[in-house]
């Protein structure tokens, strides 16, 4: 048949195998982003003097507004959800009574958050910023915080 023809047939059989098992093996990557990027607090923001209108002018409408007891909270958030999943299965139910299957997945949601607390007079009292989207995917996913103890309340 000749050397090139053998290679063609080998390639054909590989493709047929891929086509046949494509329904049995799959890997999926899914990403969902909600909200616009949250910028780090500007150096112009001053606790005790920056007003609510200045914050609204700088950052626009907040994602969420919450009334605390005697204080108002603005939250600017962006969430990034990433899923990786792999599934493998050989359907044998029709003639073997059970099937062989395996699946695994990882889900990770990370948040960028800027929270600002205002006094009843509309003056910035406190703010917290966290850039969760900058954390590494695998390290964050498999990080074990269960052994850490909470700091004692003063």
């Amino acid at each position, binding site marked *: *048949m*000749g050397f*090139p*023809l053998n290679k*063609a*047939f080998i*390639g*054909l059989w590989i*493709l*047929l195998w*891929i*086509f046949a098992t*494509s329904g049995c*093996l*799959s*890997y*999926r*990557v*899914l*990403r*969902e*982003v*909600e*909200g*616009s990027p949250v910028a780090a607090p500007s150096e112009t923001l001053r606790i005790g003097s920056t007003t*609510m*209108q200045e*914050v*609204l*002018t700088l*950052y*626009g*409408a*907040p*994602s969420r*507004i*919450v*009334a*605390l007891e*005697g*204080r*108002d909270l603005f939250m600017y958030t962006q969430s990034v959800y*990433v899923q990786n999943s792999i599934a493998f299965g050989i359907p044998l139910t029709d003639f073997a009574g059970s099937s062989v299957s395996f699946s695994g997945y990882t889900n990770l949601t990370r948040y960028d958050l800027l929270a600002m607390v205002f006094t*009843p*007079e*509309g003056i910035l009292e406190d703010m917290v910023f966290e850039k969760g989207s900058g954390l590494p995917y695998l390290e964050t996913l498999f990080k074990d915080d269960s052994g850490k103890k909470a700091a004692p309340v003063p």
Partner: protein
Amino acid sequence: MKKRMAAFLGVIGLWAAVGVGCTVIGKTKEYQPFDPSKFHSLTPGKTRAADVTQLFGAPTEVVKLTNGNAYIYRRAVTKGTALWLVLLTLGNFDTQYDQMALFFDSENVLSHYGVSLNAEQTAYGLPFK
């Protein structure tokens, strides 16, 4: 020679049939009929809550604050992309919002407001960013 060419073309044809992917794109809109271009007519200290509802309609959400209320107008656009490549599936969803937050004092007079218009910045794409 003809057999080799036929086999080669057969491999190419099968590869094309198997390798061709399936692409899906979609768009979802959470619609609220407020016109952000009208916010230039808002005057803090003068505009009242009734004027705001006449301009923009009913708010999406009302939040009771320490010294008044906040009216929130919000709408969202989501663009989704999915690509199926036999063994590999890729999906990406991007959701962005248009939001207006208007703050009223205890007398229902507008004290300040903020606007964020990001809904048209949603994009199709793959999940590799």
